[in-house]
């Protein structure tokens, strides 16, 4: 049953390549619903895999799986409207790649074997490359080229890191399956030098995919050139998948007593990412690129929180979940704006509040959520990270952290206000249909509800996930 959850979208994706053009849209929604159902079942039953050496249900994997499932279902509903309104030539390649992308991301969340994890993450790159090239323009071609090359080279580093971890097993004379759970259990007897080297390479490798600066250069291009549903998936869940690889390796490091080493590196990369985002977000001229830089910022926040550990690690997981919900809704909304105004530039838009009022609600609420306003979860997550960092005594880092957040908020707010209220003479070419606003509302509402009421099973799973790195209160 565990395997079915990634096999179903895989087979459906293959089928979708050969289906007639308009059958792909309902197939997306159906598979999305089936996937969501299966994920909930896995959450409730926690089954054991038929291949326990390769796959396992872990708390952090479960969290990501449920987020992926929910997002994909809502995005697939939005996609039906988006495809109707936009003119995409090879629609079956788009839907097929979406389904394969879903399948590979599911594989990432369930894999426990270090190498299977690598295979799955590399497969996400390959499955998502055609999505970025959907519009067939020279700019999207350039974005795809950069994405595939930079991510493949980056992830090759992660493969080297994984190999080095197996070397650390050889040197330490440990003979267990190369799975994250088995290695965490015997972490103390692994050779520390090779383990450290392995961690650094894995962090650089998966960090490239996660969008940590300075390896982030592909991200703004890919996210801005992909069609909006694909951008929402890329930003909302693909980055989480790469984070999962880093998180699990960090668990091994903490169990081996090298948590200070890995934590310090994570904090440095996190801060660099936040600073890079703060620098570039101020002078953005395109709104999708602005959202992409905001993703880099949030990935930086999450890496930083994970590095600090303790309460901050709990905050990082909260940020991870809420960032997925809010950012994917923002990218979907940016799709409405793009179709409505026909321009990628902030200058080409304006007066969103009157021109597209329903889109405006989603856009502005999403902005409030992502920049950490109180009724949304990112606020709580960031608060926990700040308190956790103070507790751990990293006063300089927390100073840089807070300052950068303020700068990013100022830059972001400036652009959002321009889009929302500035005068414009543009005409709107898109009727705001229900399928193109309700998925965003649902995502934002989910984030809002999760802020006030966390189901006990969700709370326990988060605590269980961060326990390994000393998380929780």
């Amino acid at each position, binding site marked *: 049953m565990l395997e079915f959850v990634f096999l179903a979208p895989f087979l459906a994706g293959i089928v979708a390549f050969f289906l007639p053009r308009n059958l792909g849209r309902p197939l997306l929604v159906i598979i999305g619903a089936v996937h969501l159902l299966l994920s909930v079942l896995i959450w409730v039953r926690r089954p054991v895999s038929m291949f326990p050496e390769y796959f396992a249900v872990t708390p952090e994997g479960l969290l990501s799986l449920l987020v992926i499932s929910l997002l994909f279902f809502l995005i697939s509903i939005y996609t039906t409207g988006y495809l109707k309104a936009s003119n995409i030539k090879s629609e079956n390649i788009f839907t097929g790649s979406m389904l394969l992308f879903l399948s590979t991301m599911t594989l990432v969340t369930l894999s426990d*074997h270090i190498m299977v994890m690598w295979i799955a993450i590399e497969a996400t790159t390959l499955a998502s490359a055609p999505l970025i090239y959907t519009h067939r323009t*020279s700019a999207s*071609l350039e974005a795809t080229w950069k994405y595939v090359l930079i991510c493949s080279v980056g992830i090759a580093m992660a493969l080297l890191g994984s190999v080095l971890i*197996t070397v650390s*097993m050889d040197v330490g004379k440990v003979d267990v399956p190369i799975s994250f759970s088995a290695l965490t259990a015997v972490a103390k007897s692994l050779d520390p030098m090779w383990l450290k080297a392995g961690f650094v390479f894995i962090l650089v490798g998966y960090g490239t995919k996660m969008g940590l600066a300075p390896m982030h250069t592909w991200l703004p291009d890919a996210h801005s050139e992909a069609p909006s549903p694909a951008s929402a998936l890329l930003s909302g869940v693909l980055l989480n998948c790469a984070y999962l690889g880093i998180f699990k390796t960090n668990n091994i490091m903490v169990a081996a007593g090298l948590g200070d080493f890995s934590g310090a590196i994570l904090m440095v990369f996190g801060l660099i990412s936040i600073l890079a985002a703060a620098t570039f977000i101020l002078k953005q001229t395109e709104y999708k690129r602005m959202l992409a830089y905001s993703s880099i910022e949030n990935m930086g926040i999450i890496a930083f929180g994970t590095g600090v550990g303790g309460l901050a690690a709990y905050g990082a997981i909260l940020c991870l979940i809420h960032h997925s919900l809010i950012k994917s809704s923002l990218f979907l909304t940016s799709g409405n704006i793009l179709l409505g105004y026909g321009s990628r530039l902030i200058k080409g838009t304006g007066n969103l509040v009157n021109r597209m009022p329903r889109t405006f609600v989603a856009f502005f609420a999403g902005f409030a959520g992502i920049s950490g306003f109180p009724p949304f979860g990112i606020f709580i997550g960031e608060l926990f990270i700040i308190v956790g960092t103070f507790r751990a005594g990293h006063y300089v880092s927390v100073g840089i952290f807070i300052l950068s957040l303020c700068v990013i908020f100022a830059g972001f707010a400036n652009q959002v206000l321009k889009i929302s209220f500035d005068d414009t003479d543009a005409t709107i070419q898109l009727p705001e249909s229900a399928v193109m606003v309700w998925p965003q509302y649902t995502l934002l509402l989910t984030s809002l509800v999760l802020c006030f009421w966390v189901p006990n099973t969700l709370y326990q799973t988060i605590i269980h996930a961060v326990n390994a790195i000393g998380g929780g209160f």
Partner: protein
Amino acid sequence: MSNPVDVILSLVLLSCLFSFGSSRLPGLIKVLAFQGVVVSIVPLFIDPNMTGGGILFTIITLTIRGIVIPLCIYLAIKKVAIHREVEPIVGYHASMLAGLGLIVGAMFVSRNFDVPAGNASVLLLPTAITVLVSGMFLLMARRNAIAMVLGYIMMENGIYLVGTTFSAHARHIVEFGILLDVLAGVMIMAIILQNIRRTFDDVDTALLRTLKE
């Protein structure tokens, strides 16, 4: 130095130097194919008691690394119909000199590492490091998109050398998965190359500079 593994590994080192000196793409692809073949047969000489499955897997690796991947790139450039220079950022002589320096450096560095016991060859770690860094060098020092893909393949060869020879933990099914990923990646890159050629009428990556801050 009578160890057969060392002889094979020195061929790999030579192929790195050749790749730095080749100015034309078909030549570079041939060097890469040769390196793929040589790298794939290394496990045959290292592991004394190899099973049938192991031998079969070596043959599959050899086919993919030595034949399918180079062929894939070769067909891509054939369609693109160019037999031209790799457009170096760093010149060929300087590259060769850097390659020699790299080999010396790799030898020097790898003496400091605590390598698992039972490894037959002294050249193994230096060669792996050299191939890996050479791949990165090609990626950075050549502007031609095809040469960059070849650099990526060379990096993968280096990682393969580290992987198969250092640890006996990975099962063949997993290694096969990795190989399949690399193959699919190269195929997608080949498709993108054709599209780049069609759109820009060239594969010089200097043309891919519109998206930036």
